């Protein structure tokens, strides 16, 4: 993964002029140094209590350390993700990307079956940094149920140790 370039044709859903629209990720990521982290599900505990809030509170530091934008990806529809983001005051800090069709998640090989948890096909918990050409600088995955390596603090450490070229 590290060193390879993301397939820009993967699609996620965003609100455009108040309506949902499928958007290619290259139009979202290209030209920016992006922090992208993924959660298994909106409104589930670790995602809600630790992962997303961590990035919201460290957003300014992360941007000062060289990231242009922070994205949160989840295999949820854009309505659910918007509501979850609003509940965590993400405006201006983290951009929510609804990967309802699991296009981006599948392209990254991060799809996992959470049917036994009542949730269907979801994303694994990961965090990555993409450079301005969508090449992957770092890619870290937390094993199922765990949380640590993908936390905002770890991403901040990486950015500080690896200023943009």
């Amino acid at each position, binding site marked *: 993964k590290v060193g390879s370039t993301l397939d820009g044709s993967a699609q996620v859903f965003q609100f455009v002029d108040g309506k949902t629209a499928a958007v290619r990720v290259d139009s979202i990521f290209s030209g920016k140094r992006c922090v992208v982290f993924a959660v298994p599900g909106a409104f589930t505990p670790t995602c809600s209590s630790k992962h997303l809030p961590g990035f919201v509170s460290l957003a300014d530091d992360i941007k000062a350390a060289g990231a242009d934008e922070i994205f949160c990806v989840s295999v949820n529809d854009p309505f*659910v993700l918007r509501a979850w983001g609003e509940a965590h005051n993400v405006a201006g800090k983290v951009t929510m990307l609804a990967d309802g069709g699991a296009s981006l998640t599948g392209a990254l090989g991060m799809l996992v079956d959470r049917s036994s*948890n*009542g949730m269907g096909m979801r994303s694994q918990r990961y965090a990555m940094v993409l450079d301005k050409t969508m090449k992957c600088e770092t890619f870290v995955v937390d094993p199922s149920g765990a949380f640590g390596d993908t936390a905002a603090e770890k991403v901040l450490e990486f950015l500080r140790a690896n200023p943009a070229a």
Partner: protein
Amino acid sequence: SMQSLFVRACRVQRPERVRSMAFDVCQNTPGWAPSVGNRISPTITLQKARKFDEAVADKFKASTYDEIFKGKKVVLFAVPGAFTGVCEKAHVPSFSKNADAFKAKGIDSIICIAVNDAYVMNAWKNVLGANGSGIDFYGDHNAAFTKYMKQEANLAGAALGTRSQRYAAVIENGVIKVLQVEKAPTDLTVSDGDSVLKALK
């Protein structure tokens, strides 16, 4: 013939087994969909809206037909998606404002379902607050119930994927007495609380 198969089955099988065989036949008959007069299959399940931690504690146990429908008069309405416009602003409130009126007509419970997971439904219930009072929320996370009812809607165009049509039903001890389905998921003309109240005898 199918009829003689059933006659023979009744002689040797227990009633529940015969009923589930009948369900299998109906379900696999093209064009058939559960409608007024049919009994809901006793094998259906739904996930009660609750926090993920609560689900871990109950080992993700599904709510059963016995728990939801058996011996009860239930009003069930289905929405395409939690946190979406019509569902939130109009459909759910139309039932919560009529909760007492439904109780007066002998309804034991009003349940709202959507193809969402139980945790999203729980969060939605909390956000709805008073607009969702008197309603039990359930998640049909894998669309199994929706597919059983033959009410799937392909809402990929709205970024929602496979969801439920918008409909309302009155189900007494598992038997469908009223079933009113909107022509389009964005409509709200026959499946709202006032319309269902009118349909109740």
